[in-house]
């Protein structure tokens, strides 16, 4: 069913609403003030068609409940400014969480999205404060037994289902495609929650024919190639190939030793690490334990490395225990440490970075302003050439213990989405890594060109509508639950995402089956009648087609 069907259904549903809430006895006498016009902030249709169309579908459903809803398109910067900096001044916003390797561990999303401590200035911009959820979010963080932690995380998802701090919409599917005449089919790796665009693909893919390169696209220019600065999403694709890390997130979504031969959890706060023998930086110098220790200490020095600092704050000390081994002692147990720190921090050369750090401590700006002229890591690829807004060329590091099979990894910056399909069709790129257009067009291309293979995978991220719980009526869980129930997520996935998405009702994606609470979508009542029932039970009334607060409640919030 598509949008047209929805529009046709409006009249029927409106009649239902009138006969349901509207006709109930002396509604007017039992009702409070009419609910003000509610505004949904969204990116413009031209900029993010899926989110805008989802907002339209949502507004349409809610109008059937008697709400006055306006969709207000804003450019990204302006939307972010309102949502992030003016936390009292908006009602609802369309937003998204994107998939990243480190989000394979649920801690980042479970804690930072909804813990009340992040509400004033952090990522809990919707302002949800639930002591029981806080308790669960804190408990999962220190529980190192995976099975017990899984139970806590599942309980946290159920708590979110009860409270509906977000109106979860869908987990989109990542759409990637490649040319099997140039890249051997079966050698690209599907990583849980990320699809084919991941390091395991770049390491394992085998070239076919004369062309020995993988040429892929990105829609955003790279800002910097910097081991101590998370400068952008596309930038991370490059840095993770140039610099090694102690661990990496495997195709199964779980952390596994990488630059480390072994990682041993001695007790909840002690981790012993032995690094591989014979590792070398791209300039030929050896990777030592001192380099590894420095890589964990550097982000904690002053405020020089603000982006990585949060990931080392829990480290009490790092000690050398042998020529190839060191011990990390944590201040408190941290279940996500392997993923959020060991698989995230880049191993850097102490001899190169120590003087730079010292120099920047005497400057007003931090080390992120340092321009890395010659990026030197120890990773499986070396930087050959970087024109940040045009093309990044990495070449294989033949000395690496996991040397790639392709000669070069070439990232082309292509902002015209339609042109990327043309490029794939003509063989100008052989891996469609970043595609935000209509997936049906990729399907059509596959049907025309037998060399093109398409792959879809459910994302770790999700699309949602955030409502501001600082502002009534969103501070009422029953109201949130009713509005959430009114949205048909199956229809949403079909209509707005053309079927390339799965319905969502949790911040832990089904792409992570170990952590995901199975059946969570079904735990939410669904349908307009259910939404009306919840509102009725909570005291909301429809008077003259307009939804009113429960009796005695005044509308005191200024429309934004």
């Amino acid at each position, binding site marked *: 069913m598509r949008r047209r069907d929805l529009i046709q259904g409006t009249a029927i549903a409106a009649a239902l609403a009138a006969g349901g809430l509207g006709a109930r006895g002396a509604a007017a006498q039992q009702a409070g003030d009419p609910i003000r016009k509610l505004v949904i902030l969204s990116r413009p249709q031209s900029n993010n068609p899926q989110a805008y169309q989802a907002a339209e579908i949502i507004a349409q459903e809610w109008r059937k409940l008697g709400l006055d809803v306006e969709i207000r398109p804003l450019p*990204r910067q302006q939307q*972010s400014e309102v949502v992030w900096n003016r936390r009292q001044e908006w009602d609802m916003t369309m937003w998204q969480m994107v998939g990243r390797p480190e989000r394979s561990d649920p801690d980042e999303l479970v804690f930072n999205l909804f813990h009340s401590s992040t509400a004033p200035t952090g990522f809990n911009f919707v302002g949800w404060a639930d002591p029981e959820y806080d308790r669960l979010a804190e408990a999962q963080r220190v529980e190192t037994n995976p099975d017990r932690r899984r139970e806590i995380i599942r309980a946290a998802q159920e708590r979110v289902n009860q409270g509906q701090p977000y109106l979860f919409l869908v987990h989109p599917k990542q759409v990637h495609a490649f040319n099997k005449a140039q890249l051997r089919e079966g050698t690209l790796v599907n990583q849980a929650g990320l699809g084919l665009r991941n390091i395991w693909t770049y390491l394992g893919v085998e070239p076919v024919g004369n062309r020995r390169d993988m040429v892929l696209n990105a829609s955003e220019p790279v800002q*910097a190639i910097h081991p101590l600065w998370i400068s*952008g999403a596309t930038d991370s694709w490059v840095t993770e190939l140039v610099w090694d890390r102690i661990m990496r997130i495997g195709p199964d979504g779980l952390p596994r030793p990488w630059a480390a031969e072994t990682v041993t959890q001695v007790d909840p706060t002690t981790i012993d690490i032995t690094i591989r023998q014979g590792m070398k930086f791209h300039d030929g110098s050896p990777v030592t334990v001192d380099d590894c220790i420095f890589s964990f200490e550097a982000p904690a020095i002053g405020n020089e490395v603000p982006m990585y600092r949060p990931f080392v704050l829990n480290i009490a000390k790092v000690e050398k225990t042998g020529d190839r081994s060191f011990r990390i002692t944590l201040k408190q147990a941290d279940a996500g440490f392997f993923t959020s720190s060991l698989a995230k921090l880049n191993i850097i050369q102490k001899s190169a970075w120590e003087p730079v750090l010292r120099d920047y401590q005497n400057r007003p700006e931090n080390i992120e*302003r340092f321009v890395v002229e010659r990026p030197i890591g120890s990773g499986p690829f070396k930087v050959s050439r970087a024109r940040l*807004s045009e093309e990044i060329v990495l070449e294989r590091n033949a000395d690496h213990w996991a040397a790639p099979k392709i000669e070069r990894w070439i990232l082309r910056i292509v*902002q*015209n989405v339609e042109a990327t399909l043309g490029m794939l069709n003509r063989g*100008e790129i052989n891996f469609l890594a970043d595609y935000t257009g209509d997936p049906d067009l990729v399907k059509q291309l596959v049907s025309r060109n037998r060399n093109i293979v398409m792959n879809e995978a459910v994302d770790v991220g999700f699309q949602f509508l955030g409502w501001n719980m600082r502002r009534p009526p969103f501070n009422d869980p029953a109201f949130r639950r009713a509005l959430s129930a009114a949205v048909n997520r199956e229809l949403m996935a079909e209509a707005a995402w053309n079927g390339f998405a799965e319905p969502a009702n949790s911040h832990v994606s089904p792409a992570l089956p170990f952590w995901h609470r199975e059946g969570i979508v079904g735990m939410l009542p669904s349908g307009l009648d259910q939404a009306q029932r919840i509102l009725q039970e909570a005291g909301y009334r429809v008077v003259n087609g307009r939804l009113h607060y429960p009796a005695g409640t005044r509308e005191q919030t200024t429309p934004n």
Partner: protein
Amino acid sequence: MGYVGQRLIQAVFVLWVVATLCFLMFRLMPGDPTLNYIDTSMTEEQRQNMLVAFGLDQPLYVQYLIYLKNLLRGELGNSFLQGRPVLELVLEALPLTVALTLSALIVAYIFGVIAGAFLAWKRGSLTEGVAIPLVLATRAAPEFWLGMILLAIFAFGYGWFPSGGAASAGAEYGSEWERLFSLDFLYHLLLPALALAVYLQGLPLLLMRSTMLEVMQDEFVTMARMKGLSEWTIVIRHAARNALLPVATAFALGIGGSVGGNVVVETVFSWPGLGRMLVTAVQGSDYPLAQGAFLIIAAVLVLMNLVADLLYGWLDPRVSHGRKG
């Protein structure tokens, strides 16, 4: 003070106004560069540190004074997002934009002048009846549409041209000059330059045609006819030369205008020029880069205006620029 001196002072004043407007415009826009880094782990402390690092914690007037002081020293600052000097980034993108603009302008003006003269000569004919609406349509058509049509036909359809970029994937060159004069670069340049030329040719064509129609009424043309010269000789050797003056002025202004006006074509063809860089900078609230790019575009525009004025006086000595003879 001579005429040139006066025009130079005016140019400097205009650039100061542009620089001030650029400064205010970006700072008065909602948002700041820290919003590019919104992340689940971002804290208020991190955000404040970032503002300090960018110098945005200072009062507006202090920021403005620092900005003007740096400008006087020829410093455009460092990009917030890339950390590199703005001048370096702009100079990296500028040759590609200049190559695209100049090639498109030259093609557009050569075609426009010849076709404009031809259509003036053919006034009232069926050819003119068909050609003028066609020219107006290409002039009115959005650039992105023209670009996409050309891409769809010549790149995706026939496969004659690449779908974007300024060079083939992984192509290596010894220097920027080597790249700019390589066959691969020219091959990538053809389609975007054609799209831009199709869009740009309308102005010189219509200008040439209308000026030609005026010139053709002049006495010297009647005299040439009376002398028995062929119609073609009259049009090309006499009328067209006299009609070129406004077209030459438009060409100079066109260079200035097009340097900053290629945003759409550069985006459609993934051409890594100044226009695309400017869009990225504005979207990311990269104030120094956006200011620097705007300022350089404005400087080129002001310079080209100056050149056009001087050129006009040189080509047509009757133009006195208000000087008393």
